[in-house]
């Protein structure tokens, strides 16, 4: 190392250099420097907010001023579980979420399979972009577009008109269609990624061992891609459970989201208690999903 002349004294004294040596020697401190802000924001502000909300489920609201009264009570939770209407709304929403998830999976599978295994690389890249683009954008625009399409004078009834059929779009069937539409890309992409991870050789091995394509699909492909389907279903399920805008635009029935939205202004504790329903369902769902290794497919 004689040919390289480094001014060692200046190196040692440069503050940036000293800092990097310091962090190298104390990886824990480096870690906490990195983590401080994210933990403060997500851990303290966000999780803290959630806890405050959950806690307020145990307070009461003054019926005249809507101000919170900090007296511990289980009445709100009792009301959620014992009032038939709210139980019905919860079941209706969960059933809707399940049906939407099912429809999304059924519609997503052929497209994802085609993208992953049939399409040429060029077409595949185009399709990925084609599915990604509507995923991120314009939730409200999409819901609004369907409101227009499903209306009595809209495109659907125009197309059905010659057959003498009319479709009441502003119904739960219509809402099911809209939800399926809204969350479909969230299902396509994880399934596509999951299918692409399956090595071709496994499918060939299955065929070599005498399995027909149906058997290969149900015994090899489907089990391997299942975590990806679960990953997609996290979104289709969770997004349906908490939505209050699409139901307002399309259906006249109440859903968990619309009830919370209606109540939070005057009865925050009850709204918070009702919000526990989707939270508990989703957290349980997430825990199961993590067990099934679905997070790797998000």
């Amino acid at each position: 190392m004689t040919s390289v002349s480094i001014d060692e004294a200046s190196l040692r004294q440069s503050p940036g250099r000293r800092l990097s040596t310091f962090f190298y020697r104390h990886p824990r401190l480096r870690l906490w420097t990195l983590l401080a802000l994210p933990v403060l924001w997500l851990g303290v502000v966000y999780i803290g907010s959630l806890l405050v909300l959950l806690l307020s489920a145990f307070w009461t609201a003054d019926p005249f001023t809507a101000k919170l009264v900090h007296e511990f009570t289980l009445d709100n939770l009792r009301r959620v579980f014992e009032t038939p209407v709210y139980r019905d709304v919860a079941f209706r929403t969960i059933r809707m979420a399940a049906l939407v998830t099912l429809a999304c999976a059924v519609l997503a599978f052929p497209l994802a399979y085609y993208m992953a295994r049939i399409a040429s690389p060029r077409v595949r890249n185009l399709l990925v972009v084609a599915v990604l683009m509507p995923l991120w954008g314009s939730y409200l625009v999409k819901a609004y577009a369907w409101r227009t399409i499903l209306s009595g004078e809209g495109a659907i009834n125009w197309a059905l008109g010659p057959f003498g059929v009319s479709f009441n779009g502003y119904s739960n069937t219509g809402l099911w269609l809209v939800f399926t539409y809204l969350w479909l890309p969230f299902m396509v992409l994880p399934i596509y990624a999951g299918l692409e991870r399956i090595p071709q050789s496994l499918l060939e091995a299955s065929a070599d061992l005498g399995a027909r394509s149906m058997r290969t699909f149900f015994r090899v492909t489907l089990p391997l891609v299942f975590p990806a389907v679960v990953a997609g279903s996290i979104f289709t399920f969770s997004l349906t459970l908490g939505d209050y805008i699409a139901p307002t635009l399309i259906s006249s029935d109440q859903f968990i989201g619309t009830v919370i939205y209606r109540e939070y202004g005057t009865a925050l504790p009850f709204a918070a208690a009702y919000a526990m329903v989707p939270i508990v369902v989703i957290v349980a769902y997430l825990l199961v999903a993590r067990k099934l290794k679905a997070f790797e497919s998000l």
Partner: protein
Amino acid sequence: MVESRLTRLFLRLGAGVTLFFIYFPLFVIALYAFNEKVTQRWPIEDWSTKWFSVAFHNESVREALEHSVLAGLGATAIALVLGTLASMAIARHRFFGREVMTFAVILPIALPGIVTGLALQATIKDVLSPLGVKFGLATIVIGHATFCVVVVYNNVLARLRRTAGNLDEASADLGADSWQTFRYVMFPQLRTALLAGGLLAFALSFDEIIVTIFTAGAIQTLPIWMYATLFRPTELPIVNVVALFVILVSVIPVYLAQRLAGGTGVAGGTTQRPARREP
């Protein structure tokens, strides 16, 4: 090929149906923007571009657009910082609570938006308002940043997993300080992932409404304006034009981000595209 000819035909058909389903409502609403009449009857009979100039000169639309852009930029900036820091910690360290942290990053988009919105509103009302932060642009940014972090985080994390961890050590051995290592070694590797994450975060923020309603107070962003206006039949032509505009603004960043980072994950790129496994 394991799939038979018939299976492939069916798959092609199914894929076509699904793609049509995804795009047909977007085209319909795009066409309505050129509808001359105020009524929303299908099929459209008279065409016109006059509503574009009406929308362009609408004061509340302009104001809402300005708020949306500012909120998007602010949220993206915060998400970039927090997401990068979190992903660096997760990618390069093993620590107690690491699992909890990965959970906490995903939670804001996994939990129903109404829960996040309600929780943030309660905190803003009880904690921030007494400190002088009133409902407005700042609180919108706080809400958006919370769920935008995950997008940047996922993009950067995916990139970090593909790059060698000892590069920063090598850089330090060669005499670089922390800043130089970041500037000349880490940043060039992360640049496109950051840009992609930032674009997606902006797209996510720009049209968000479910959380925004709870954090906005009296301020209107473009989606909130749309939501307030679409129940007024006479103003629907303007809503249609704004809808077309929102589609374009949210679609273009996603296209660019996809080109840059190539991620296919729902949350913005965890799943990298592997090489084709054909023999």
